[in-house]
């Protein structure tokens, strides 16, 4: 039941925060804080002594299955393994960071803001935990509406355009996924007589080449938009730039990760053959994303927009690693997911802090801030270095492991993507130089980081240093889950070599 509580508590907390708005708007913050801390405590209870549990269905530490619409084969099915445990931790951690960022930034409609914040976190948690494809889609769409409100109500000048663009991109690609889910449901039902949305049962559904490829693409479209993969990334710079700080942190730190998680959990294990066929193409796109994202980042003058484009580049590494599909690369992808969430989240946090103080995000109008706000500038330098992959910090471990994993699959792509690291150094240092170095502005009065801001940033800093020096706990936690995923995909490829049984309904393929 703890798993259901992880989702229910933020949902109820959100409603409570909103209803308090009319009388005590300020309490909404404390409600959100209590909810997130409580949830974090619950998650901590779930950490087991050993991760390599032996069970028939997979290395799941705990699972929950309640009948929802049994007639249609829909269950409220949540399960936790090492992989999504790590992601749930990340969700809470960044949720708290977003809360810290929003604490003073959001002054109006406070209750509504925290309602949306908690609901989007609940949706993300649901996406990470759901093992029923219908439930997964339900949460996938459910996180969209609060995110839309976060951008469109609380965002910056161009928020309407950005929020509608974000909504259209994700919703339309989500519909393709819905079609693919339905397709898989019917193909499986017709073959086995059991109509179900249960992920564990749908694994290993024999598919013809064409229908497998189409269904895989349906899923992949939804995830590639979220990830984002070039050329579906155009919503991202606008959404990230126009969102309030907390929204940017959640977008970059968590929403993008749902795409990566989806590919890991669903696309490759459900459609191993089609995914293998598409892998060279997807990896090529990922390398383009790495280089093109970095190139675009270099030419930005807006702090947040620059950081947004670096996300395109960094998430390219994640996509590259997932489609390389070996243990090493997947471990690297997971670390990259965490570290990118932390470092980019922190950079957005700093961008928000600067905007609150200077009322601008233009790098051209900054410069020489170091003298005025040394703590803020020092933090920025740290996270910029993390973002460029400085050895000793988590991002380095991630990118290094990914490159090692990819090297086993394709040497040229590994070499090309390594170029991305160089451009990362250029744009990261350029941020520092443009914003913080240079002649100090004499008239500038700039408040340095407050205790709340410092605490949030220090926590992220500590996490990045820890992961950089000792990433083993994450590897240990995720190892059984990732091994299981790779093994399911591999065994299925063999069973699929046997031709699909006759009698498959010609209508079944979309």
């Amino acid at each position, binding site marked *: 039941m703890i798993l259901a509580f992880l989702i229910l508590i933020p949902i109820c907390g959100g409603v409570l925060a909103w209803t308090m708005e009319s009388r005590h708007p300020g309490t909404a913050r404390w409600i959100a804080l209590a909810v997130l801390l409580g949830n974090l405590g619950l998650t901590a209870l779930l950490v087991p002594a050993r991760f390599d549990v032996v069970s028939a269905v997979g290395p799941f530490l705990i699972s929950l299955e309640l009948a929802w619409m049994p007639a249609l084969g829909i269950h409220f099915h949540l399960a936790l393994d090492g992989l999504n445990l790590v992601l749930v931790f990340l969700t809470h951690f960044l949720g708290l960071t977003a809360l810290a960022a929003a604490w003073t930034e959001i002054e109006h409609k406070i209750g509504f803001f925290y309602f949306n914040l908690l609901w989007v976190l609940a949706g993300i948690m649901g996406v990470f935990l759901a093992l029923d494809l219908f439930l997964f*889609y*339900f949460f996938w769409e459910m996180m969209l509406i609060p995110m839309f409100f976060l951008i*469109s109500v609380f965002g910056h000048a161009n928020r309407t355009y950005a929020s509608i663009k974000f909504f259209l991109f994700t919703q339309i690609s989500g519909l393709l996924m819905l079609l693919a889910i339905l397709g898989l449901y019917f193909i499986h039902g017709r073959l086995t007589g059991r109509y179900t949305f249960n992920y564990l049962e749908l694994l290993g559904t024999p598919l013809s080449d064409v229908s497998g490829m189409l269904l895989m693409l349906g899923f992949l479209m939804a995830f590639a938009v979220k990830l984002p993969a070039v050329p579906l990334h155009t919503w991202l710079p606008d959404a990230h730039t126009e969102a309030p700080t907390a929204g940017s942190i959640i977008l970059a730190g968590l929403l993008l990760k749902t795409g990566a998680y989806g590919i890991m959990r669903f696309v490759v294990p459900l459609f191993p053959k089609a995914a293998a066929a598409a892998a060279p193409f997807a990896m090529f796109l990922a390398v383009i994303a790495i280089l093109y994202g970095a190139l675009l980042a270099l030419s930005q003058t807006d702090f947040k927009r620059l950081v947004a484009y670096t996300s395109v580049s960094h998430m390219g590494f994640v996509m590259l690693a997932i489609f390389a599909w070996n243990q090493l690369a997947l471990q690297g992808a997971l670390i990259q997911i965490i570290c990118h969430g932390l470092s980019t989240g922190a950079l957005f946090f700093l961008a928000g802090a600067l905007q609150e103080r200077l009322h601008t995000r233009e790098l051209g109008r900054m410069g020489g801030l170091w003298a005025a706000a040394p703590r803020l500038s020092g933090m920025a330098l740290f996270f910029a270095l993390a973002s460029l992959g400085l050895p000793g910090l988590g991002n380095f471990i991630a990118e290094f492991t990914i490159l090692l994993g990819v090297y086993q699959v394709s040497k040229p792509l590994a070499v090309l993507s390594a170029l991305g690291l160089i451009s990362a150094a250029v744009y990261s240092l350029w941020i520092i130089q443009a914003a913080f170095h240079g002649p100090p502005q004499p008239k500038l009065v700039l408040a340095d980081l407050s205790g709340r801001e410092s605490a949030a940033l220090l926590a992220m800093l500590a996490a990045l240093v820890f992961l950089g020096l000792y990433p083993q706990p994450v590897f240990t936690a995720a190892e059984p889950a990732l091994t299981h995923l790779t093994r399911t995909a591999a065994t299925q490829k063999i069973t699929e070599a046997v031709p699909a049984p006759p009698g498959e309904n010609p209508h079944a393929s979309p």
Partner: protein
Amino acid sequence: MIQQISQLLPELWQIAVVLVLFLETIGKPANDAAKPKWLPLAAAAGIFVAVFSLKADGLLFFKAYQVDSLSQFFKLAVLVGFFIVVLNADPLPTVESEKRSDYFLFLALSALGLMFLASTVELIAVYMALEISSYSLYALIPLRGKDQRAAEAGIKYVLFGAAATAVSLYGLSYILATQHSTYLEVLAAADWTWTHSPLAVIGLTLFLAGFFYKLALFPFHFWCPDVYDGTGNETAAYVATLPKLGAVVIMIRLVAMLKPENGIITIIAVLGACSMTFGNLSALIQKDLKRMLGFSSVSHAGYIMVGLSAVSAKGLAAAGYYSLVYVLMNLACFWVICRLATDGRNITLDDLNGLYKRAPGLAFIMAVGAFALVGLPPTAGFMGKFFLLTSAWNRGHDWLVIIACLNTAISIYYYLNIVRHAYTAEAEEPLPAPKPGSALWGGVLATLLLILGAFPGPVFHYAEVAGKLLIP
């Protein structure tokens, strides 16, 4: 006899309501009572009566009147809708006070016709019930002060209605000539193939046209946006919602007689696809909220056809479930429109600007209504659409499922626009805030939409039981 009466309780209750209203219209001196105070209570009691008789079952009046799960489901839906519409029609700014009792008389009478429609299983009885519900509407629609647009809307509705009815009756004559019966029970056993009796197929198609008109399905939809636009907001709330229930229930009964591969099913599917596409594309450019909802209901008629074209118990249940959800989400939107239009004018998108600041409750209702109309979880609109798509896909109508999905994608834009205006746009001049407490019943609708979205099981199960009676 007693047993027969117990089977007809919801209808009898509604007849009693109509009679009392009738007495009020003739006996009453010109006291300017805003409206009969007892009516909401009576309508609420009607809901309980309908719930009470959900399990009723029987075949009455020379086998012309079937009381079964399907009819009781729809009667309940009609009465719930009627209750909300009555509450919504307060204070009824555009109807002169001495005409208000008549207004409610016609409203109740039209709902009564729809309740009859849910049970009729004989084509002439179907026609009678349809006319009872339509004739009242012919009188209602022009009732909007001295507004010329309302008069135009009234004439349009009558002319379109008369033409559609004529086509329908013409079709009925063909059916009678070729199949020699008007009882659905007999007709269901008849041969509806084109090769065997082409005239019967033509006849049934023409007969369906009358219901396409009620449902505002392409190409019988041209009246819909104009009538919504011209008539009073409160009347539009009724016209947009309840009559569709009547049309859907008859179409469910008629479609259940046919084989899935029948040509008429293909026609229904194609018209559904056209209706979705045409409705959504036209809605994209609308500024007037009622017009937009008008085109939106054209497209929703198309979605309902997706379920009907599956010709399976699940498909019929999905159509029934979706039409119930459709009524709820439209009433939620109209609830907000009627609260905003305190003087009874038409509401444009710009009138919604800054609604979040003025009336957070109404803005929330609007948002839930709009997201339900798009079909996003966790609203009931998503579940309804999911059931529709599943049933159509199961039948192999892949192309229809894909068109429905494309249309959902198109429709996001204009529904989202409603939410955008309510939440992010700022009003240029300060608009008056609606009365406090005005969001109450709209809030109930929004909550219902959310509950039916999270737990659709029981209601859908009931609809499925009803569907299984028609197609085992």
